[in-house]
């Protein structure tokens, strides 16, 4: 399998009360295409910090990140976010004065990636694939359940036609049944559509379904032999 994202000696620390707190220390790892990864680790170990760095929302103090061999510095963080990746948050993924389908269209209007002509039809189809029928797709998002909202967020993450999808505890607010559904979708995306999925989670149920479990410990990533 070919590599999609390569982390090289990532360091991240911050100053707190005069002391330097190191969160990520010489972290290196290479993610491969078409795989579903989960990242586990104790609370406060820096999972969200790592995700924000590899998703282009923050910058490391030092180290390099390569997307398909090209460094993020060269690509530019805005362009990287627009064209190469998608992020699914735990909650507040959606803009509340837009309907579900409009939220999906939002990602399509920002990306430079080539998209089908009839964006609206594509958006409805995407949503329908994740169980959001047209009548629901036209609702304002506060009229959707938490699980439905998360599925809209996943639909949006696919809408801009990217290969790398990040999620930070995407099922943290959902019941176990819904959690299972969402994870099944991720797995399908990785295996059927060749997307690379990187999910930060506390849930064993989630991590058990992933292709590769990673543990963040002492500022570095370790592969967990399952």
């Amino acid at each position, binding site marked *: 399998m070919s590599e999609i994202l390569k982390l090289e000696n990532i360091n991240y620390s911050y100053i707190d009360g005069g002391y330097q707190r190191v969160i990520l220390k010489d972290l290196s790892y290479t993610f491969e295409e078409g795989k579903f990864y989960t990242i586990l680790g104790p609370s406060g170990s820096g999972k969200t910090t790592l995700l924000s760095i590899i998703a282009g*929302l923050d910058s490391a103090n030092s180290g390099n990140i390569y997307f398909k061999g090209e460094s993020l510095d060269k690509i530019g963080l805005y362009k990287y976010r627009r064209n190469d990746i998608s992020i699914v948050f735990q909650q507040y993924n959606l803009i509340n004065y837009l309907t579900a389908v409009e939220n999906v269209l939002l990602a399509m209007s920002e990306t430079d990636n080539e998209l089908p002509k009839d964006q609206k039809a594509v958006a409805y189809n995407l949503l329908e694939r994740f169980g959001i029928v047209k009548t629901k797709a036209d609702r304002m998002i506060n009229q959707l359940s938490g699980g439905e909202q998360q599925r809209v967020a996943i639909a949006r993450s696919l809408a801009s036609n990217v290969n790398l999808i990040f999620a930070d505890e995407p099922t943290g607010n959902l019941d176990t049944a819904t959690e299972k559904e969402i994870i099944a979708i991720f797995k399908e995306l990785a295996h059927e559509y060749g997307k690379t999925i990187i999910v930060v989670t506390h849930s064993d149920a989630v991590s058990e379904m992933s292709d590769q479990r990673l543990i963040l410990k002492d500022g570095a990533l370790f592969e967990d032999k399952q």
Partner: protein
Amino acid sequence: MNFLNRAFKNVTRKFSKTILLTLTFFLIGNLVIVGLGISKASENAKVLTRKKMRAVVTYQLDYDEIYEYAMSLTDEDELSQFYENYPRINLSNVAELLNDERVKTANSIYNTLSYGGNIDYVHLGNRAEESSGTGESCMMDENGNEYCETYRSPQFFLKGNMFPSMIEFEDDEYNIVKGRFYTQEEINEGNFVCLVSEALANQNNLSVGDSINLLASDYGTSYLEQIGASEEDYKNDYEIIGIFSHNKPITPDSSNYDWISPYENLDNMILMPSTTIYLSSLTIQQKEFDYYASLEDMHDTGYYSNPENRPSRDNMFKNMYIDNAVLLLSDPLDVDKFVEDYSESLPQFTMLDANNDEFNRLAKPLDTLSMYANFIVRLVVINAIVIITLVTALTLKNREYEIGVLLSVGASKFKIISQFFVELALVAILGFSLAVGSGSLIAKRIGYTVLEYQISESDVQDDGGKYYYGYSIWDEDYTNDLTIDDLISEYEVSVSAAIILEIYILGLGIVFVSVIIPSFMIMRYNPKKILMNQN
């Protein structure tokens, strides 16, 4: 779902926020419209009144400056020297001003009375005419000898200009009916040419090309004898080169009708170059000079002993005393600027007077009103900026997740700021549009009330401007008579398209300034926050 679309959705779907902001902009808009409406009405009234006034600027001696200078001279000799070479208006300076393209023409008037000639004047048949005429009055001298003097009443007014046109012609007060006006060359040469009124021409069967004979002055017979001169020395032929009409007919209901002398009737005004008027009596003046020069006791004054002082063609410009030139500009609104442009470069002891003291005095209530109105507009705009900035900054807190989401899908911060700007702009346009209707009503209602108050507070009503003493041909006043009513009649509070455009621009300006601080907040926003704040 681009940012314009998002802005539109936000405005239409976040209904209560939109209503509140629209209301805010509506209130701001009303105040701004009232302020602008009143201030524009005041300015317009001034401009319109100014436009109706004649655009005349007077080039004249600056008597204040002359007085101050004379006062500063302590040496007697210096002082008398100064008075001997008293400052004067130099025609070449006037000619320079005439070169300015804003100037249409200038009147630099030199005139005299004519006591008759070979034509009959236009009669009014009023009481002044009955008591005027030609006659003889006889008196006894101390030796008991009777001596008689003929007396004459002036019949014609000879009016001369130094320039080949006149304000009255440019302003269509006079019009050439036949022939032409005199040229600069004729002025320089002092050619004996003239223009007569249509009425005078009709009465005497005169046409262009004819000549008339006029006495250019009046001397008693015994005095003439004494200095060895005769009437012939100031009697001249003038060729008629033009016939003019005028729009100031004298009718029985003209003020002071009974006592208007023949020469005061414009029908009996004869126009010719100033130099011609001077030359008309040159011979008699020379004879007079020669006579006094021959008298021993006159030599004390020194004046008559200096041959240079003898009147002649060569020194005629020096001898013709002209103390002002009235310039007519094409546009009344240029007057102040024109005066300002030249006030620095004018020769010492001369000045330009915009003739607008009266206008400025009357316009004072309007100025005050306009000042207050502008002040209110400024105050409201500043308040509006503060309020809208605060509201935007506060709502930004609620929209942090939205900003995070937009950043996570790769939207630029500039686009996010633009969206916020457009949202506010839409609401501002909505609020201001609603305010146009109500604001203009309020402006009308308040506008007249405050003007009335301003006028009652000022002294402009106490005297109705200049008093009208009747027509004076000697001291021509080129400015119009103005009253406060002239200004008030032009004062109209209305919300014009220009004001509407202005408030929209102002509204967008308010929005623009109001998003500056929120923009900084957005620029500083760290997108990582959206991930950290989830739990």
